[in-house]
C-alpha cells in the first residue's frame, strides 16, 4: 500500500488495502459513498498522471447547480523587494518592476517584464490545504474550505531577469513530499532555474535542503552559465512544470528557449536530487555528454557537443512500485532547422524510462527522428493497467503534438500494438537539411487528430468556399505528416503542415479512467507555415520566425493562407475530445469541443445546418467516477466560457456552468467535510483560482 493512496482516503467510510495499481479496490469503496476527505496530492491526481478521482457527489443531475464556493486572486499583483537596510518593500507589480528596471535597465527581455497572466497551475490538495505556484514563481498554500491564503513563499526569482522559453512567465504546479511522519514538503522549480523546498505546514524554507531551502539547478549543467543572457536578453534556463518526487528523489525537467539564433544551447538533461538535502543524485543525458554516451552516434559531426534543448518542459509521471520515471522529451536545437544536428538525435522527442535509483535508462522509444516540426512530447505519459487480448499489461500511453497516441508495456518498453517504421517524404530545398527517411507510425490506436495538410483536407462546406480555400493555398507546398520544412522561394511559399507545434495534444494532456482503461484526450486541429531567415546575430544557418527587431516593431505576417470573411481553411472539427479504449486500442467516441456557434451562424454557412464544429478550446480534462469535465472558451449563457460535463461513455454533453473568466489551467477535484469541490484557474487582472461546489442543500 502506498502512502499516497492512503492519504487520499482519509476519513473514508471504508479504508481497505489499496495499492497504486488496484483501482478496482478503490471503486468498491467509493460505491458505498464518497469519503469525507479525498486529496489530490500530485499535479495529475497521482504519479500515474490519470487526472482521475473516484468521486461521485457532483454528477450529471446536479452539475448545473454548481456554485462558486470561493475565489482567490493571485498574489502576483503585489510583489516585494529586499531593501539595502534589510527591510522588505511591498508594492504593486508595476511599481516593483519599475524600481528593478530603474536600477538595471537591461534586467528584462524587451517587452517581457514580469507578467502575472498565465496562472496555469493545477493545485494540489493535501491536509485540507491547496498548494500551487504563480507565474512569478511564488508558492502559495490556501485553506481548501475558504481559499484564504495560509502562507506565501516568494523566492523573488523575478529579480533575476526574464524567464527562458518562447513562452515566458508561467508555472504549472508544485510537488508534495512526506516522509510518512512529520516531515512534509512542497517543492517547485522557478523561472530563474532554482528548485525551492518549503515546509508544507508553514511555507518556511526547508532547513538542510540546498542553500536555505534552494538548489541552483544550473550547477553542473553545460552551456547554462547563470549570469549569461541569450540574444533576447532572457535567462538560459528555467523550470515551469512541477517536479515529481519518487521515493525520496525529486526529479524535474526544464525550459530552454526554442527561438534561437545560435546552434549552442543548454542540453535539456533531466535532473534528480535528494528530497531531504538537495544533494545531486543523477542526470539523464537527453543530449549526450560525451562520445561514450549512448546515442552520441546519432548526432553527426559530434553535434552533441554544442546542441541543446531535447528537454522535458512538461510534467513527468512515474510508477513508484517499479521505481521508474518516464521522461517525455522535446525537439533538439532548433525546432524546425536540423542542418547543424544531422542524424536521429537521441534522446530527443522520445519517451525514456529511467530507473529512479540509479538514473540509468531502462528503455526508450524515439517518436520522431531528426525532428523538424516542434513535436515535443507535451505532456506526461499516462500510466494505466489494461488487458489486451486476455493479457494483463502495465501500460503507458503517451499523447503527442503529432496526433498519435503511443502505447507501450511500461516495464519492457515493447509496443502494445506494432509501431512501423514507414518511409516519409524527404525532398526539401532547405540548404544543409537531411530529413530522416523513415518515421515510426503506430498501427493502433488510430490518430486522435488530423495529420498532414493536403487538398482533401481543405474545407468543403460549399463549392464556392472550397474554391476560396484552393485559391488560398496556391503556391504552397502541401503534404502528409512529416513532410520536411521548405524555404520560401520562387517555387514555394513554404510548407503547410499539420498538426503544428501547438496542435493536437499539449500540456493539457490526457486523462485515464483506471476502472475502464479508457483514455480521454483533448486536441486541436491547427495548420501552419513557417518562414525562415538567416540570422546576422548568430551562427545558425537558418532559424524560423523573424529578427526580433522586426517582430517587435513591424506587422507580423506569418504567411499562413488567409480565407476571406473569417471562413475556416480546413475541415472541422477545430478541436475535439477523443475517448480511446486502451484495452482494445479502438476509439470509443469523438466529440467536437464546442458547437462552434459563432461560425455556424456565419452568413455564408448558417443555411447549411452544420453539425457542431468544435474550436471552443482544448481544456485539460478532469475525470471523476461520474463525469468527464473540461473547460470551454465559449457556449456559456452569454456565449462566454464555461465548465462542461460530458458523459464518459458516449461523449454527450450533459451540463455546464458559466465561468466568470476563461479557464487557464486544468481543473482538479477534492473532498473536504463530505463536500466535493472542483478548482481551476481563470483569467483576470490578476488571474484567480476559483472553487465550485454544490449548494449546501444539494449535498448528500
Amino acid at each position: 500500500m502506498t502512502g499516497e493512496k492512503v492519504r487520499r482516503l482519509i476519513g473514508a467510510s471504508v479504508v481497505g488495502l489499496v495499492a497504486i495499481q488496484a483501482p478496482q479496490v478503490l471503486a468498491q469503496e467509493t460505491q458505498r459513498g464518497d469519503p469525507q476527505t479525498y486529496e489530490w496530492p500530485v499535479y495529475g491526481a497521482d504519479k500515474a498522471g490519470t487526472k482521475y478521482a473516484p468521486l461521485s457527489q457532483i454528477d450529471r443531475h446536479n452539475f448545473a447547480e454548481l456554485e462558486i464556493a470561493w475565489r482567490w486572486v493571485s498574489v502576483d499583483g503585489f510583489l516585494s523587494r529586499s531593501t539595502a537596510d534589510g527591510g522588505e518593500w511591498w508594492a504593486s507589480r508595476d511599481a516593483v518592476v519599475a524600481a528593478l528596471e530603474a536600477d538595471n535597465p537591461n534586467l528584462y527581455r524587451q517587452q517581457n517584464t514580469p507578467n502575472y497572466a498565465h496562472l496555469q497551475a493545477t493545485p494540489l490538495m493535501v491536509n485540507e490545504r491547496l498548494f500551487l505556484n504563480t507565474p512569478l514563481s511564488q508558492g502559495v498554500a490556501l485553506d481548501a474550505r475558504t481559499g484564504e491564503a495560509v502562507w506565501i513563499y516568494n523566492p523573488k526569482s523575478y529579480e533575476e531577469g526574464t524567464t527562458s522559453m518562447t513562452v515566458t512567465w508561467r508555472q504549472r504546479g508544485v510537488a508534495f513530499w512526506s516522509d510518512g511522519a512529520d516531515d512534509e514538503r512542497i517543492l517547485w522549480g522557478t523561472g530563474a532555474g532554482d528548485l525551492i523546498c518549503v515546509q508544507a505546514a508553514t511555507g518556511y524554507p526547508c532547513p538542510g535542503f540546498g542553500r536555505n531551502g534552494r538548489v541552483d539547478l544550473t550547477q553542473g549543467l553545460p552551456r547554462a552559465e547563470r549570469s549569461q543572457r541569450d540574444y533576447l536578453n532572457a535567462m538560459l534556463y528555467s523550470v515551469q512544470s512541477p517536479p515529481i518526487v519518487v521515493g525520496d528523489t525529486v526529479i524535474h525537467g526544464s525550459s530552454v528557449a526554442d527561438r534561437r539564433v545560435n546552434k549552442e544551447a543548454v542540453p535539456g538533461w533531466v535532473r534528480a536530487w535528494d528530497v531531504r538535502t538537495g544533494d545531486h543524485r543523477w542526470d539523464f543525458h537527453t543530449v549526450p555528454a560525451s562520445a561514450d554516451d549512448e546515442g552520441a552516434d546519432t548526432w553527426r559531426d559530434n553535434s552533441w557537443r554544442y546542441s541543446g534543448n531535447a528537454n522535458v518542459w512538461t510534467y513527468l509521471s512515474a510508477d513508484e512500485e517499479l521505481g521508474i520515471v518516464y521522461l517525455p522529451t522535446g525537439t533538439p536545437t532548433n525546432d524546425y532547422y536540423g542542418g547543424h544536428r544531422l542524424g536521429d538525435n537521441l534522446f530527443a522527442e522520445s519517451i525514456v524510462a529511467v530507473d529512479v535509483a540509479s538514473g540509468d535508462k531502462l528503455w526508450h522509444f524515439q517518436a520522431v527522428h531528426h525532428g523538424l516540426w516542434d513535436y515535443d512530447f507535451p505532456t506526461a505519459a499516462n500510466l494505466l493497467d489494461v488487458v489486451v487480448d486476455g493479457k494483463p499489461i502495465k501500460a503507458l500511453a503517451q499523447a503527442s503534438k503529432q496526433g498519435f497516441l503511443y502505447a507501450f508495456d511500461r516495464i519492457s518498453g515493447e509496443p502494445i500494438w506494432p509501431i512501423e517504421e514507414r518511409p516519409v517524404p524527404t525532398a526539401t530545398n532547405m540548404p544543409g537539411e537531411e530529413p530522416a527517411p523513415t518515421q515510426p507510425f503506430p498501427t493502433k490506436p488510430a490518430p486522435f487528430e488530423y495529420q498532414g495538410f493536403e487538398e482533401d483536407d481543405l474545407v468543403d462546406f460549399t463549392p464556392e468556399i472550397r474554391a476560396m480555400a484552393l485559391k488560398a493555398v496556391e503556391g504552397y507546398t502541401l503534404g502528409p505528416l512529416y513532410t520536411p520544412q521548405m524555404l520560401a522561394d520562387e517555387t514555394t511559399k513554404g510548407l503547410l503542415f499539420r498538426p503544428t507545434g501547438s496542435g493536437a495534444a499539449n500540456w493539457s494532456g490526457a486523462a485515464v479512467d483506471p476502472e475502464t482503461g479508457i483514455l480521454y484526450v483533448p486536441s486541436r486541429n491547427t495548420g501552419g507555415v513557417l518562414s525562415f531567415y538567416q540570422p546576422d546575430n548568430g551562427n545558425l544557418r537558418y532559424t524560423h520566425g523573424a529578427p526580433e527587431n522586426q517582430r517587435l516593431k513591424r506587422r507580423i505576417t506569418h504567411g499562413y493562407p488567409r480565407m476571406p470573411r473569417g471562413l475556416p481553411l480546413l475541415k472541422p472539427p477545430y478541436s475535439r475530445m477523443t475517448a480511446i479504449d486502451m484495452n482494445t486500442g479502438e476509439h470509443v467516441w469523438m466529440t467536437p469541443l464546442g458547437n462552434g456557434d459563432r461560425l455556424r451562424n456565419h452568413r455564408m454557412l448558417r443555411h447549411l445546418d452544420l453539425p457542431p464544429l468544435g474550436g471552443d478550446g482544448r481544456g485539460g480534462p478532469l475525470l471523476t467516477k461520474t463525469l468527464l469535465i473540461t473547460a470551454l472558451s465559449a457556449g456559456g449563457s452569454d456565449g462566454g466560457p464555461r465548465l462542461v460535463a460530458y458523459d464518459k461513455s458516449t461523449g454527450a454533453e450533459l451540463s455546464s456552468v458559466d465561468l466568470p473568466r476563461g479557464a487557464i489551467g486544468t481543473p482538479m477535484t477534492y473532498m473536504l467535510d463530505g463536500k466535493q469541490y472542483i478548482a481551476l484557474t481563470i483569467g483576470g487582472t490578476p488571474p484567480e483560482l476559483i472553487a465550485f461546489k454544490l449548494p449546501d442543500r444539494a449535498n448528500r
Partner: protein
Amino acid sequence: MSPHGDRAGAGRNLAALVLSALIALAHGGEDRSVWEGVYTSEQAAAGAEVFSQACLACHSNAPGGAGGHGPAPSLIGEDFEFRWIDSSVADLLDVTRQTMPEAAPNSLSTQQYMQLVAYILQLNGYPAGEAALDPAARSELMRIYIEPAP
C-alpha cells in the same frame, strides 16, 4: 463534410437568401446590420478606454496602422472588412474574448469585451445609435451582421 447547396450562380444565392430569411424567422427576428446604429457612443468611449489599456500596445487604433505601438494586425478598414464581412457581432465578441489580449485571453469582463467591440465598430465608421450592445441578448447579437457600406 459534404458540400451542401451546390446549385450555381444566382439561383444558389437566391436560395441561400430565402433560407437565411426562413432561419431568421425561425429564430424569432430579422437580420440587422451594423449600419443601423447598434451601439452607443458612451459604450464606444468606454471601449476606447479599455483599448488603450489592453490592446494599444499591439494594435493601432488609427487607419493604416499609423500611431500604432505594436506589431499586431490592423483592426480597421480593408483588413477588418476582409475578415469580418458576413460575420455577426456575436462572432466578433466571441473571437475577441477568446483570443485577446494575446497574453491573457478571456481575462477582461464580458462587458469590457462588448465595449471593445463597440469601439472597433466605431473605428470602422459604423454609426452609433440609441441602444447599447448587450452581451446578455445573445440571440440579438447573433442577428446583427457586419456588412460593407450600402
